[in-house]
């Protein structure tokens, strides 16, 4: 299938196989397509074996940090008598990222199945699926799917007669980017202001409602039924480059390409294939200028860096950026990099939760300095100031929102300094009114 356009031959369709197939949304349709076999199989396995299997598969968190999933599950205490929780992070709000949205829209049962497998593995009886507030259609689809799953015995007090209880609670966000940060998400579910928490304690020790909790991304969880059905070795074999990056990755390609959309590739696929084959390449007469490979929070790559970059965790790190959430933002030579970076910092300044001083004040100040440059009143000293602010905002706060605001500023000045200089020298027409 594929949505909005058919799958490209260079894709490896696993999670995206039924994107665009409305029948796959229904419980019956999903079962016809082989659904819920993974959950049935998992429920018959000893938990330790299940966790070892996911560890062996090499599956890593698809939300951005890339932490090994099986290892994360293994941090949960065993038989400690406390309630455990699984939180599914469906608050996909990283600018440039829209892969989880499609999983929620088209294959809700894949997610429910993955959630249930993970919940069983970590001895959680309750799953909170935290869905981004703006996701109206995904919310409706998920609500219907959860109802069907309960009605069919895939959820509830006795899942498929196994004696295991698994409940799913859908929790709708209210529009804060920061609630996608896992500890802020837990506060939000608890009814508190969505402020990130200090770690330690880590969620596996004291998470949601103070109880052992695991938080996994939608795409991560949706991958687990496949691993359970086809084995760790099969999953691990899907790797074209680094053995530390396995399986498939959904990449949301947006920006100046001919065919924006989600593409699912085997880890290690060349970036060139994604941009120029699957996504159709640049618009006529345009050339590639820059790529943000993992959502707006990661450093910007120049066209040269993207040239021979391989799409996996290690491949992108080798080029000075990160795979992050897989939101690939493509910019051609018509892009004003200064204005682009300003738009990102403005987003972070708006979304800062205001807890940490550096983030609360730094994101806003950075935005103001960029506005000054864009209004034609910048000074050379402003560039050093921006770098100093970025330094003060990096590695000093509770969560990484502040770092995320600083990353594009630093990489932008490093790689596209000429554009900043042009505004400052008056060689470019100001694009913003004076602040």
């Amino acid at each position: 299938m594929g949505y909005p356009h058919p799958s490209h031959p260079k894709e490896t369709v696993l999670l995206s196989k039924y994107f665009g197939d409305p029948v796959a949304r229904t419980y019956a349709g999903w079962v016809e397509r082989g659904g819920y076999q993974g959950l049935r199989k998992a429920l018959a396995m000893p938990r330790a074996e299940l966790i070892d299997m996911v560890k062996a598969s090499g599956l890593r968190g698809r939300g951005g940090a890339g932490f090994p999933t099986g290892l994360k599950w293994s941090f949960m205490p065993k038989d400690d008598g406390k309630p455990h929780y699984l939180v599914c992070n469906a608050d996909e709000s990283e600018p440039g990222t829209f892969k989880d949205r499609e999983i929620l829209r088209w294959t809700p049962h894949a997610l429910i199945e993955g959630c249930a497998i993970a919940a069983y593995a970590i001895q959680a009886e309750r799953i909170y699926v935290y869905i981004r507030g703006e996701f109206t259609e995904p919310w409706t689809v998920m609500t219907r799917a959860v109802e069907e799953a309960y009605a069919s015995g895939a959820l509830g007090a006795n899942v498929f007669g196994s004696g295991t209880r698994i409940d799913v609670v859908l929790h709708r966000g209210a529009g804060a980017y920061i609630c996608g940060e896992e500890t802020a998400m837990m506060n939000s579910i608890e009814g508190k202001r969505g402020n990130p928490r200090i770690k330690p304690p880590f969620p596996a020790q004291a998470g949601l409602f103070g109880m052992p909790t695991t938080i996994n991304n939608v795409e991560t969880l949706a991958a687990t039924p496949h691993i359970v059905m086809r084995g760790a070795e099969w999953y691990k074999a899907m790797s074209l480059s680094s053995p530390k990056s396995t399986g498939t990755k959904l990449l949301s390609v947006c920006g100046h390409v001919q065919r924006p959309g989600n593409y699912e590739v085997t880890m290690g696929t060349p970036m060139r294939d994604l941009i120029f084959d699957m996504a159709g390449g640049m618009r006529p007469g345009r050339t590639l200028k820059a790529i943000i490979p993992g959502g707006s929070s990661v450093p910007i790559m120049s066209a040269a860096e993207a040239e021979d970059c391989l799409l996996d965790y290690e491949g992108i790190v080798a080029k000075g950026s990160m795979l992050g959430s897989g939101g690939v933002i493509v910019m051609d030579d018509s892009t004003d990099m200064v204005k682009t970076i300003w738009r990102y910092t403005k987003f972070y300044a708006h979304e800062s939760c205001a807890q940490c001083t550096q983030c609360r004040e730094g994101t806003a100040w950075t935005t103001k300095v960029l506005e000054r440059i864009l209004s034609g009143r910048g000074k050379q000293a402003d560039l050093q100031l921006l770098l100093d602010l970025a330094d003060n905002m990096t590695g000093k706060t509770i969560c990484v929102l502040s770092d995320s605001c600083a990353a594009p500023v630093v990489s932008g000045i490093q790689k596209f300094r000429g554009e900043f200089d042009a505004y400052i020298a008056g060689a470019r027409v100001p694009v913003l009114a004076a602040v």
Partner: protein
Amino acid sequence: MSADVTVTIDGMPVTVPAGTMIIEAAKHAGVLVPHYCYHPSLPSPAVCRMCLVEVERAPKLLPACVTQVAEGQVVHVNSATAKDARQGVLEFLLINHPLDCPICDQAGECELQDYVFQEGRGSTRYGEYAKRFNPVEEFGPDVLYVPNRCILCTRCVRFMDDVAGAAVLNVSERGDRAYIGIAEEQLLDHPWAGNVVDLCPVGSLLSKDFLHKARAWDLDKTASVCPGCTQGCNINIDTRDDVVVRFRPRPNLDVNRHFMCDTGRQGYRWLNRGDRIEAPLMREGTRTVATDWDTALDRLGDLLKKSTGSVVLLASGRLSTESLGLVRQLVAGRDVAAAIGVPVGDEAPLAGIPNLALRRERVPNLNGAELTGYVAGTERAIAAIPRAGLVIVVDAELTADEERAIAAASGTVVWMGTVASDSHHKAHLVLPLTTMAEENGTYVNRDGRVQVFQQAKGAPGMARPAWWVAGEVLAGPGPDSDAPGTGAEAFASLGHYYPAFAGLTHADLGFTGRVLQGQLAGAAR
């Protein structure tokens, strides 16, 4: 968790219990880690990021307020990296700060001012941008919020949420638009709400009562004990030019931690009364004449000797134990009805701190009075006045009926006090006393803790402590008299008469007091 851990902080090895946070361990090493959001009586959110310190082998700077010590840890509070980080925080805090120190009540005791002066940048890089503006808001009966000065440390929010248990404050909005909000239709009128003013490290939360009253650097601070109720919260009395301008809590982890209630906080005005009795007054025939202390003390001795029959002794529960104890000895061995009045009010606990409340009994020295032979409640003593040969009033707070009963007494009346009253005109002898702010003394709180309060201001005219008056008479006249000359000597002499205090001195009590062992008749009241 009981084992000790040795760490090195700025080159100084210190050994502290495992589980101690670096910020507290640093205090043992004599190092103050600059901080804003951290407060030892509140949960730590680690949000101001001011206390970031360098810990060897850690990949990045760590917040000292939430990082536990570990064996062998080497911490640098004043390394270049840590100082740079602090300078960055200070710069961020200042960009939206109005820098209106000249008109700010907090100036002189402001942690933003102090740390910026200590290690901030010399000039701004913020340039021409407008600063965040929000209008001043009234939060409650005594609390103003000046949002422009706020650094969002959230101490006030956490105090109300986690200590007072009345979550009326919050952080509203996000990013650099954030400010402290108050729940709709709510007031910051909790009986302990005034503590948010003390907790605020900057001049953002202000006391209306203290507003523009005095500059912090003009104040003298004196360690004292709140005279408001039997809790005995430790306080500082802040005075300017012998005028009491405010009470503020003084830390005592065993009594009030870092807090005091609003009733206690506001209870200082009586210490500034201008209508004080400033000289001893004697009845001479039909006239009352002012006299000197030698004459007055002789007269007091005479009156005590010549009076016969039963004695009524009405005293104040705000008197020091020294005064209560020695005055009571003036009539030892006689048939005495000795009592203190105990006004009562509603109890108002501070939910988050065990055993801390504004107490029903609104006198500070109820236990001290009972240990020195007084009963609580004056009804029986008042009823005994018509039959008494001698009535002694010691600064008692009297009702109109009680005043009339004393004025109608047929026996001798000796009246000691601070301010004029209806009954003192009928007295045979009037002696001017000091208030608790004008002398050194002790109170015994409801848990039997004896605590010292120190003299905060000078006494008007010839006013003297009641213990001095009694001590002089008890010791008799003459150069060899061993009458106590200081509050400490008066306290040391108490043990001679009252075994509960035997062997104790002011020095034993220190700044936090000491609980009397097994001497209290009843359970803690």
